């Protein structure tokens, strides 16, 4: 059993990064995720593992520092919250185009614009559909507990390096700010060897020069690069989907929700079952790749699905695509930092799905 601690979600991310052998963090403070950089600073990472920590002049600079460090094969990360993640989109597109592994954490707050600092899940489209320009995908992990805030850091780095693709942890202010018991994994040493087939650490006599770029001016070359990227995304869809099913075995009605919404729905499932209503919860842990097949399968079992999000309805579009008209899919959500109660969510299930 690993070390047990009571930690905030943001702190768990920071501690997990150190333990995962992260080489560098570049970031810019923004509520509600500043605890990540503050925790790393207090830990004096340069002494503890040699991990580089730098507060950049902007989110834009931070993501480009990530681009540079990732180009050398280092395990690097940045974190921010919604408005800051918007600023990083240019860099994220370049990183995806240049096929660099890295971790980007978004502790989502309400928007659009400067919005609010309260929790939200309104960045789903941005995270899963590209966000920046061009045809690209991030690996998107959605933690629903402080434990997963820790575990997914390691998973995100593993997947990022496996696919040479940026990975995002899409959390929100609720998971970031709450404290729970977390079992920390044992520290992994930082990498000392780097894949010389692509990293830029200085051209040695025994290999050709390596170039990190997303520029392909020739259309044919650009199209080929896009096709290669798509192959990776298809492979992710086939191999990396992760979900959790809660009380789904005999469920007649299904909640689909991720992250903090899933926690609320989990309670709603208990409340419903106390009333004799057989509900279940399907919780995507990966938002890209999306659990299309798993949801399609559940559509053959349950009578209706309620998708619950802290937004005006984003993931529900992917749920509807998965269900493909087979059964009724409705949406319930609150926005702007408002958080529905389990009772509210159950009421919506009754009105929109069971009674409707």
């Amino acid at each position, binding site marked *: 059993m690993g070390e*047990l601690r*009571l930690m905030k979600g943001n702190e768990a991310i920071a501690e997990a990064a150190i333990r995962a052998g992260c080489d560098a963090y570049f970031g810019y403070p923004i*509520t*509600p995720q500043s605890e990540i950089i503050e925790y790393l600073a207090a830990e004096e990472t340069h002494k503890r593992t040699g991990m580089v920590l730098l507060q950049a002049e902007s989110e834009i600079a931070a993501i480009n520092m990530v681009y540079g460090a990732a180009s050398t094969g280092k395990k690097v990360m940045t974190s921010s919250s919604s408005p800051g993640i918007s600023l990083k989109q240019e860099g994220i597109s370049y990183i995806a185009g240049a096929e660099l592994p890295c971790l980007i954490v978004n502790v989502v707050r309400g928007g659009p614009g400067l919005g*609010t*600092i*309260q929790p939200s899940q309104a960045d789903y489209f941005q995270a899963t559909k590209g966000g920046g320009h061009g045809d690209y995908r991030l690996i998107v992990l959605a933690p629903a507990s402080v434990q997963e805030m820790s575990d997914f850091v390691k998973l995100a780095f593993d997947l990022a390096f496996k696919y040479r693709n940026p990975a995002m942890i899409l959390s929100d*202010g*609720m998971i970031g*700010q*709450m*404290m*729970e*018991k977390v079992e920390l994994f044992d520290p992994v040493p930082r990498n000392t060897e780097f894949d010389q087939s692509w990293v830029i650490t200085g051209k040695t006599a025994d290999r050709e020069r390596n170039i990190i770029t997303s520029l392909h001016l020739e259309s044919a070359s650009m199209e080929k690069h896009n096709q290669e990227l798509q192959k990776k995304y298809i492979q992710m869809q086939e191999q990396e989907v992760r979900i959790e099913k809660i009380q789904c075995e005999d469920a007649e009605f299904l909640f689909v929700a991720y992250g*903090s919404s899933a*926690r*609320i729905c*989990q*309670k*709603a*499932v*208990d409340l419903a079952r106390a009333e004799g209503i057989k509900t279940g919860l399907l919780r995507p842990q990966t938002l890209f790749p999306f659990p299309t097949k798993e949801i399609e399968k559940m559509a053959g079992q349950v009578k209706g699905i309620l998708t619950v999000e802290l937004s005006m309805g984003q993931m529900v579009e992917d749920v509807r695509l998965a269900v493909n008209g087979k059964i009724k899919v409705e949406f319930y959500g609150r926005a702007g930092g408002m*958080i529905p*109660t*389990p*009772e*509210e969510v159950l009421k919506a299930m009754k009105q929109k799905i069971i009674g409707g």
Partner: protein
Amino acid sequence: MNEEIIIAGFGGQGVLSMGKILAYSGMMQNMEVSWMPSYGPEMRGGTANVTVILSDSRISSPILNVYDTAIILNQQSLDKFEEKVKPGGLLLYDTNGITRHPKRTDIKIYQVEAAAEAAKMATTKTFNMIVLGGYLKLKPIIDFEDIKNGLKKSLPKRHHHLIPLNIDALERGMKIVKALNN
């Protein structure tokens, strides 16, 4: 065992740290715990509240609409949370500054004169520990030893010399807590 608690008062009354000590102590007893604060502008001078859940099984929603226990430290919080206590649940409040007292009859209501008691001690910062003592007297869900360990865990080392003072405050709270309606 599943105990869902809201602690609410002014920022600076030690609301969040009281919740933290409860959560740490619960963890010492191998419980599942969650601590969900209100955060943001409310932290600065306004009202502050924290939802603490202690449970034998996996915790679902860390944010709730109704609570087993409400620990209330100012009027705004009393106005807001009195109606959110589950029937048969517990409401514990400090009477200091309260002009409109709780009226419900389907819940158990207790008072702890923590502010007055804290004024008798070396520092009034012990206020939240007196309240917590009162709560633990009413719901002894955590061993006193584990509370001491929780204190140790949640206080930075440089404040460890204050632990005896905090334990004194907890014990005083246990003594002065009194029932209002039962």
